[in-house]
């Protein structure tokens, strides 16, 4: 496997959807190609950092304000009929 082929398969590899043969070839490539190993490892870390970051969490007070606004508008919509959305 060449570096460009590794890159082509990287997303499938990280998502765990590679067939066994390609996976073995890719891991073999990673075992001797340090650059691709680093790219693979840091890409995986990138995903994990974003996934675990709790970026843009909805604060509880805002959450309940939004929810009651939504439900009030839904009830108004129900009273007025379906053409109002």
């Amino acid at each position, binding site marked *: 496997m060449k570096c460009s082929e590794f890159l082509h398969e990287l997303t*499938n590899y*990280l*998502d765990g959807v590679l067939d066994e043969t390609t996976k073995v070839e890719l891991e073999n490539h990673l075992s001797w190609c340090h*650059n691709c190993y*680093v790219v693979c490892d840091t890409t995986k870390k990138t995903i994990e950092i974003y996934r675990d*970051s709790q970026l*843009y*969490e909805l604060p509880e007070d805002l959450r309940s304000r939004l929810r009651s606004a*939504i*439900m009030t508008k839904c009830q108004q919509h129900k009273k007025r009929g379906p053409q109002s959305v």
Partner: protein
Amino acid sequence: MEAIQNKLVGPVSDEMALVRAAKGGDDSAFEELVRRYDRNVFRIAQHITQNREDAEDVVQEAFLKAYGNLAQFQEQSKFYTWLVRIAVNEALMKLRRRRPERTVSLDEEIKTEDDSLPREIADWSPNPEQIYTQSELREILSKTIQGLPPGFRTVFVLRDVEGLSTEETASALELSVPAVKSRLLRARLQLRERLGRYFQKRESGDGNQ
């Protein structure tokens, strides 16, 4: 290396029961759906619009639209995927209104295959997220993802932050599966490269950014 596992968002059968009850006029069932997905919709909206007020509006508008169009929901996909599609469209509309000078589209021009080939290979510190405080880290992550084209960051957020499958992401964004995969690879590689500026392993005493 272990594959990244997706987060699951609630049991589907239970979700369908709530949707059916809501369709039948049970507002408390709809409120339960709001409770279940409001955080996700808010996160997606803020990632796309990069603006808190817009994200708040998108949450309200998306749920209200879902409520008003519930009868049209065919139950062939998950309610959540359908809701995400509505929310993404609302968020993109906000973005277009805010930045009329820039084209905002999920179908934006894709450059050559080489545009996201890694240029910077240096390894990261072992626990990069621990170099910074929580608020510094959030600032870095937010600034970094903001630099990505909206079409790329939307795919990244749905797949990697919210844990939708490739097929669900394709369906929510009305893109093909290969288009989602291509954008996802570029988004991941571009984020990796940009984060490298903050997370690279440094020699001791080297204070350069």
